[in-house]
């Protein structure tokens, strides 16, 4: 499956919203920071994702990031090369 950048962001947002019910979600395309480096060969995109969700309560950062990766599913195997993640609960943001 080949996505345009816009379609990929839309698909990622939809998956994150469906499984994490975030109260806030921002997805920025970071790909231009990484264009051309050897590790980015293959064309996967980089995104910076900030998520505020109650689903993270009581979880370690590793566990939170795993939740995000599980939600993103097969997008992590090809279309997306890497995510820079910030995962907070509403209480932590307050």
């Amino acid at each position, binding site marked *: 499956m080949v996505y345009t950048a816009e379609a990929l962001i839309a698909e990622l947002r939809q998956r994150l919203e469906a499984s994490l019910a975030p109260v806030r979600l921002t997805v920025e395309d970071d790909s231009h*920071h*990484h264009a051309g*480096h*050897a*590790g*980015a060969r293959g064309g996967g995109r980089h995104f910076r994702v900030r998520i505020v969700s109650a689903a993270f309560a009581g979880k370690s*950062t*590793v566990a939170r*990031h*795993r939740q995000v*990766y599980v939600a*993103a599913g097969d997008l*992590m*195997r090809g279309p997306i*090369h*890497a*995510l*820079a*993640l*910030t995962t907070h609960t509403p209480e932590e943001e307050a």
Partner: protein
Amino acid sequence: MTVDTGAHVDPTSPAIQDLIREQVTGHPVVLYMKGTPQFPMCGFSGTVVQILKACGVKDIFSVNVLEHPAIREGVKVYANWPTLPQLYVNGEFVGGCDIAREMYQNGELQQLLGGNAQG
């Protein structure tokens, strides 16, 4: 490395998974990265190297996954974590760049590195 880690090798095979287990349990600080600590080929990988250096870690066992395609895919299975770099301390998966940075900023990483960090 005597184990074949080429692109044709199944990353989920016992040969690769056992190799990864031996690497992470056989060295206190292990980093699977793109490039080398001297010449990182990815900003995220380079950042983790800088963080480890800032923690005073002198001895990083690093694996350049660009040269070992089966390990590149194998560690994603091993840690159930889809991205590189991956940092392991004392045999335990710690996380990628964001987590290493966060743990460095709040002092957890220095604590975890304990005897492996000097200064």
